[in-house]
């Protein structure tokens, strides 16, 4: 039987997994076994998670496997089906993504005829047991295995109510990026979100299958530091890359499991909110998918893994908008403090997973590029080791000025002056700093343009002063404006997600958000000329004033090419060509979604703080109502602080 071909996987988490899930599966199926085949099939169908858990028992743990072997009837599942379907077509050489799996499930349900040779449920179960055990490996090793008869799968379907099946598939498909799902083209995720589905949330099986989460929840997260990432990412070798892959592979499910548990601790009514539910679903699916992956031993496996993770990252772009909407709708059910805590946990964890994933993906793509030995220009994955405050403030100020100019219909944004230790150098993830500075500068400019008192002589708006301070351990960016400050009532809500729930109303209008600067400044490529070059004027003496001059003018800045306007900040990848695929996940948001630049999402400041705190820094805002606001973004310059990650 297929058992013989199973590789002896020794992954720690899988072993943990197998014991927990097998016992779970066992008890469940025992209770089912006396029912009629139809009922049992229905039960089995509603237990996708459990089954997917039990697929993990194929780790050579024969005791567990044989125990499970007695309960064969359980195994007709989506995962099983997706696996078998893949095998039957003999096409997939990479990991089957969730949407593919689900759509193929639907295909099977609709088009396959019951196999004539299968006449009773027991026989079906018997065979399907085989595939169920095989499927995780088969997903990766189809080329080594000849096609197996797989029509068994379809035999179970006629007994299922199809409508229910479709519902499930639709929901899932919509949660994922729609375009690759042949059967369910869902171009507007938001429209689906509006209809609460996924009835399986409320089935008892969902409750019981939750046990597969426990071993993961009980594992502590292994936090990392920026410095570790840097040292590890230098001089990438094959074995290091695989190590990195396996770290990501084992770490992501743990982090996901912690957040899933957070969802589960929310009040029940909140869990029934369609937006929250959708995110919960996404997390579960991501968890299952990654947890299923066996140890990565070859570069090919790693590539496949990266593809899968990339797909997940893309799918999860809907998370922030959905969470924000969910929180908005649930604000009356949970105390504000709890909401805030929940949201920042979610966002922080989200950053942590994206950092891990993106770092690994970028390392992989750099490694795969033919001249990867030449690529070390200070970038190690998504980390840049020579960040200069001067450059980064310049770039973000420019972008913020563009944004504000467009939002205000062509008004000239205030100048930005830069002083302090602007030539300090440190290591960080540029995306994170850019996001924060962009938000701060954009806010400052907006307030100055609204309230700033113009110089009576020159008619200029009061400038924004950015001061860079280098301490022994930290770099602080102080952004100081004279935009009239923040009213005390507003100030108290500055950081809260819950106190002014209406602030997220604009999330109705966008469906995806990566929380990067790129997506916010992504502009129609027809107007690159609106980008304003910086001028560095040597004011008086040695003071380094960076001045944003009045708008269009000709683009004279040699360091800023209009052609880069679409992704002006993406400097991570050593080579733009090779990094095209890498950046696809981080810039997946369509520019149209941000076309209305005045769209105020209300999440910029809290999100910025989450970013700032992530590597041990912080973000503080002090306002002088009637005058202006000072914001202080602090970053640890040695990168030796562990991720700020609350398990």
């Amino acid at each position, binding site marked *: 039987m297929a058992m013989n071909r199973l590789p002896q996987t020794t992954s720690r988490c899988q072993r943990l997994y197998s014991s927990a899930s097998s016992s779970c599966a066992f008890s469940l199926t025992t209770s089912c076994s006396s029912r009629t085949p139809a009922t049992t099939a229905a039960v089995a169908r509603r237990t996708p998670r459990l089954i997917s858990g039990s697929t993990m028992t194929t780790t050579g743990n024969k005791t567990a496997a044989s125990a499970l072997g007695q309960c064969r009837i359980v195994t007709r599942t989506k995962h099983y089906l997706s696996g078998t379907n893949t095998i039957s077509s003999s096409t997939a050489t990479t990991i089957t993504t969730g949407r593919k799996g689900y759509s193929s499930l639907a295909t099977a349900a609709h088009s396959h005829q019951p196999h004539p040779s299968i006449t009773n449920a027991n026989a079906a179960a018997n065979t399907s047991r085989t595939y169920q055990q095989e499927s995780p490996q088969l997903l990766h090793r189809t080329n080594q295995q000849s096609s197996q008869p797989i029509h068994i799968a379809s035999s179970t379907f006629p007994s299922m109510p199809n409508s229910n099946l479709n519902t499930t598939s639709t929901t899932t498909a919509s949660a994922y990026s729609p375009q690759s799902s042949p059967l369910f083209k869902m171009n507007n995720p938001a429209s689906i979100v509006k209809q609460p589905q996924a009835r399986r949330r409320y089935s008892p099986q969902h409750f019981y299958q939750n046990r597969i989460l426990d071993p993961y929840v009980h594992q502590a997260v292994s936090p990392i530091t920026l410095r570790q990432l840097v040292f590890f990412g230098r001089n990438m070798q094959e074995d290091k890359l695989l190590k990195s892959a396996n770290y990501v592979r084992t770490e992501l499910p743990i982090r996901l499991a912690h957040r899933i548990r957070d969802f589960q601790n929310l009040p029940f009514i909140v869990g029934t909110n369609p937006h929250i539910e959708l995110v919960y679903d996404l997390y579960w699916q991501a968890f299952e998918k990654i947890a299923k992956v066996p140890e990565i031993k070859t570069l090919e496996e790693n590539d496949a893994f990266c593809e899968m993770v990339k797909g997940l990252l893309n799918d999860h772009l809907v998370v922030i908008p959905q969470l924000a909407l969910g929180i908005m709708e649930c604000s009356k059910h949970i105390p504000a403090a709890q909401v805030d805590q929940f949201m920042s946990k979610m966002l922080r964890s989200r950053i942590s997973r994206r950092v891990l994933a993106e770092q690994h993906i970028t390392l992989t793509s750099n490694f795969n590029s033919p001249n990867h030995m030449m690529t070390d220009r200070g970038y190690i994955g998504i980390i840049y080791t020579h960040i200069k405050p001067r450059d980064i403030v310049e770039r973000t100020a420019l972008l913020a000025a563009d944004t504000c100019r467009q939002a205000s219909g062509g008004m000239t944004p205030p100048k930005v002056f830069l002083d302090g230790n602007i030539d300090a150098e440190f290591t960080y993830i540029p995306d994170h700093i850019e996001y924060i500075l962009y938000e701060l500068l954009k806010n400052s400019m907006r307030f100055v343009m609204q309230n700033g008192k113009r110089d009576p002589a020159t008619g200029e708006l009061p400038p924004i002063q950015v001061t860079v*301070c280098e301490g022994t*351990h930290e770099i602080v960016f102080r952004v100081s404006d004279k935009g009239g400050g923040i009213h005390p009532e507003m100030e108290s809500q500055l950081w809260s997600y819950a106190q002014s729930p209406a602030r997220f109303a604009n999330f109705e209008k966008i469906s995806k958000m990566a929380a990067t600067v790129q997506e916010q400044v992504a502009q129609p490529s027809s107007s690159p000329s609106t980008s304003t070059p910086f001028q560095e004027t040597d004011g008086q003496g040695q003071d380094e004033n960076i001045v944003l001059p009045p708008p269009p003018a000709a683009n004279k800045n040699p360091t800023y090419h209009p052609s880069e306007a679409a992704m002006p900040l993406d400097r991570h990848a050593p080579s733009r060509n090779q990094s095209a695929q890498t950046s696809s996940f981080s810039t997946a948001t369509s520019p149209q979604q941000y076309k209305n630049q005045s769209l105020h999402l209300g999440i910029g400041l809290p999100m910025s703080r989450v970013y700032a705190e992530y590597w041990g820094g912080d973000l503080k805002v002090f306002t*002088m109502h009637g*005058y202006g606001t*000072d914001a202080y973004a602090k970053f640890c310059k040695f990168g030796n602080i562990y991720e700020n990650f609350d398990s």
Partner: protein
Amino acid sequence: MGLRLTERNTITPSIPAGPSWNNSTLVQSSSVVTSMALRSTGSSLATTTTTKREFFTNSEQKEVEDVVSFYDDKVTQYANQEIQTVTLKTLLGLGRSGSSSHDQHQQGVAAGDLAINLDVARYARKELPVRLARLIKATQKLPFIVGTNPYIKRVYKLYYDSFQSITASPEEIRDKDDLDRFAALLKGLVESHADVVPMLSQGFLECKKYMAKEDIKRFLDDMIRARIGIRLIAEQAISLREQRHEHETSSVETPHDDIVGVVHTELRPADLIKTCASFVQELCDVNYGSSPEVVINGQTDTTFTYVPVHLEYILCELLKNAVRATVEHSQKMGRSALNPHGNGPDRHHPPTNRESGNSVVIVNQDDDQDVTKRPNEFGHPPVEVTIAQGDHEVTIRIRDHGGGISREDFDAIFDYSFTTVKNENDSSSEGSSSDDSPYGVDSIFKGVSRLAMQAGLGGPIAGLGFGLPLTRIYAQYFGGDMHLVSLQGYGCDVFLKLKQIDESLDDLQI
């Protein structure tokens, strides 16, 4: 000795001395003039006498030991009474009719309304014993060993005596004579309490091994907050009486409509900052030979209602920190007139040629960027003070280029830190980072001159590590707050947010 004088004159707002109590001389009537006088009469005094603080004489020492209160139930009895909070409105005598507060105080207190004065005095007579009893009770609950410390015991006795003398005074305050007697009694008490905070500080410094740091902090926070309330009530009663007295004895009509007891209804922070800054600069000059300029900008014409003595204390303390840090950082970085950028990486404008002597500059709202950056002839970059008037509050931001606060020290700056003074005063030196100033700068000005700087400046308790925590308590007292941001390697920004008192007159409970 220098210490005691300064303390008395800052915390005790040497009651508004009649006609001289107006905007420009506001501060002079308080600590600054006296302290400056003190310094000018003997700056050597200020630099040398502070190593040992003699808070009491031998005879007093004996007295302390005689405190017997165990069998005295009166304290408990009073302490069990509820505190009757009072709104500031009542203290200002503004709550007596439905008319607008401004009109009311025009014809009311400023005219020396006896009825209001009586009201406040009666309230004080009834309320002060209760509050004092509570303070005494709190002190009694300290660990026994702490209570036996002579400084703590002395404070305890002071409160006990004050309690006794107030409860012994006639309960009824019927007429002007009663009022005068009561005011005189209060005045005496207030003066006798001038040293309480330094004594507490010294006492807890000696007791720190017997109590957890947090317990000490909680006790001191509560104690000082209660003390501010008590003093406010007492001082209001005293100063109302004195204002009335002024009014009755002088033939001219009262020129001080905007001063009601200890409250100033049209306080101009810019003026107060200017006065405090000059004072701090002069002392800095004396101790360091140079001082940075202070630039005041923002909405410099702001006025608001506040207790000037509180604001003066806060400003002096913060400016003192800023000025001292700037000068010490200049020393450290080698900033000088010839080398205004020092060895450090921060860049500044070339030095100004502004004539010395005019070292506090008030600039207009549309301020000149350069002024806030240009170092003076000593290479010190200026301290920038920005005033902002919001709808409900006045914010004052003080920025310095003093190098900021080191990470290690930052967490402790709002503790009642006993370290800065320990080297000089505490003979039992336990190894700690005590030789660092709160700014973490290894100053060559250790020892005498620094101590003088600390003792001579900013009033009573500087150098005992009470500066910042006490400042924050004052700032928070009327619903304001204070935040300090350290930009390590660069400087500090302090945000002082003060609620307009008259905005919260109705619900502000003292």
